[in-house]
């Protein structure tokens, strides 16, 4: 009956996202929202893609990666090059960007994922910077002044659609056999390999999938703003994404959504006082560590918690009865 429950969840999820989409689409097309908030809604969508994909590495598989902005940069630049130099249609260049980031993720993942914990964090951090510095030193794609004049083809509809696809794919991966294997790597990698799970294979798998979605977000990013600039992809961005994942809860997709929305919203409100933004972030994280050390959602999904409450009368363990 597990399958039935999932299908029902999917239906609810799609329904809610459709309603959300309709509401925002209405607000945007009727120009009720100011251009500032329109921009921020787009950023929220991008951040949700980035945070939920990073969650697959950091939350589900338990590997500490700090190089997400690097893959985003690859997606942004490759897709921009595809539209500007090769005049490919928008969707093709976005997919090319995602694929390029995925290939790079795989190539980088194979050697680095033998590392663990801090070492992996350092390696991925360095890798993100290497990607950025490399871009900075290629004059054909603008070098330090970045690429401008990229056709702004990303609309809210595109962003929202890509976000839903991302969440859907990630959700299905997490609930699949592969997702379980990734989880077991996080829980205990010695036991996982004793069970015959090739731990490196699943780490690389998670890393590659997450890179693909980071590349997708990058492509959408450069085609939304019309520019791609190396300074948009510094390690501070990786750190921002990481904060969203930790705030929402490592291992919870709904947590990543909540984290991305809250932090983007705070960043938007604090726009005029950028020097205080980091203070608010830090305070938020300190409060979180004191009162909810596992993040807002822990490693549970919001839907499960609500359904679990509903069915079991307030038992907050997130395990909905799985009748078999």
């Amino acid at each position, binding site marked *: 009956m597990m399958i039935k429950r999932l299908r029902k969840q999917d239906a609810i999820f799609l329904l809610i996202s459709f309603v959300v989409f309709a509401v925002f689409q209405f607000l945007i097309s009727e120009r009720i929202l100011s251009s500032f908030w329109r921009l921020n809604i787009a950023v929220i969508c991008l951040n949700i893609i980035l945070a939920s994909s990073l969650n697959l590495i950091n939350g589900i598989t338990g590997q500490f990666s700090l190089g997400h902005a690097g893959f985003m940069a690859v997606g942004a630049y490759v897709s921009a090059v595809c539209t500007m130099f090769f005049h490919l249609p928008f969707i093709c260049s976005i997919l090319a960007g995602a694929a390029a980031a995925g290939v790079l993720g795989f190539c980088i993942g194979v050697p680095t994922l033998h590392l663990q914990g801090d070492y992996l964090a350092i390696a991925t951090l360095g890798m993100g910077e290497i990607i950025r510095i490399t871009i900075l030193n290629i004059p054909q794609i603008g070098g330090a002044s970045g690429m401008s004049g990229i056709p702004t083809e990303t609309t809210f509809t595109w962003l929202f659609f890509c976000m839903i696809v991302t969440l859907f794919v990630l959700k299905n991966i997490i609930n699949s056999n592969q997702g379980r294997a990734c989880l077991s790597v996080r*829980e205990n990698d010695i036991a996982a390999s*004793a*069970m015959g*799970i090739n731990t490196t294979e699943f780490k690389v798998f998670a890393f590659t999938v997450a890179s693909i979605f980071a590349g997708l977000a990058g492509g959408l990013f450069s085609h939304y703003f019309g520019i791609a600039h190396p300074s948009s992809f510094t390690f501070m961005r990786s750190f921002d994404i990481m904060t969203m994942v930790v705030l929402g809860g490592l291992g919870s997709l709904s947590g990543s959504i909540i984290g991305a929305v809250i932090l983007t919203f705070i960043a938007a409100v604090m726009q005029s006082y950028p020097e205080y933004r980091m203070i608010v972030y830090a305070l938020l994280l300190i409060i979180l560590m004191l009162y909810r050390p596992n993040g807002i959602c822990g*490693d549970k999904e919001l839907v499960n918690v609500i359904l679990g409450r509903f069915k079991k009368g307030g038992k907050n363990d997130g395990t909905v009865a799985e009748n078999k």
Partner: protein
Amino acid sequence: MPMLQLEDINVYYGAIHALKGITLSVEEGQIVSLIGANGAGKTTTLRTISGLLRSKTGGITFFDKPLQKKSAEYIVCSGISHCPEGRRIFANMTVSENLEMGAFTRKDKKEVAATLKTVYEHFPRLKERMFQMAGTLSGGEQQMLAMGRALMSKPKLLLLDEPSMGLAPLLVKEIFTIIKEIHEIGTTVLLVEQNARMALSISDYAYVLETGKISLQGEARALSESEDVKKAYLGG
């Protein structure tokens, strides 16, 4: 021909020579135990068999097939299951999810379901706690879960590493009863234990490890009566 044969196994942790030319064999249908003091190399031996560590020399054969240099995955698929030391359950997964992970290498869902049923028969306690997070189980239940999980791959040979570690005497007895049950349904067991008396009482054959070498071996009954073993491991 023995089921599992280790021939001149040398394992190093960096510069430390942990196993110094171990040669041992396990006959099908027996319970064989490895006993010895801390740091003798018991766990290292098991980890080398299950492919988590590599030997520099020699060879391991299982039903005449070489296992040397094969992946842990291949070794699980060929019928050896390792129940690691210190239980190492997946704490944030439910009991049933933990058990399902044990059958990760098996593709036939129906057969897996049948195995799950037999595992629940051996460990009724686990069935009661099916949907509970594994981390909330008691120590003894976690040990049962780790053993159940290892049985989920339907092994011909089960490697058990210190199943009695940190358990109350009554629970140790229960665990050993279950080991005997598992053995009776046709699983060969290679048991690593510090509790030498318990281990020898259920084994057919035993090896005594001392700082990386096999110092004594023989029928378990004979060993438990030998003066040397009595003095060193059975407390007089």
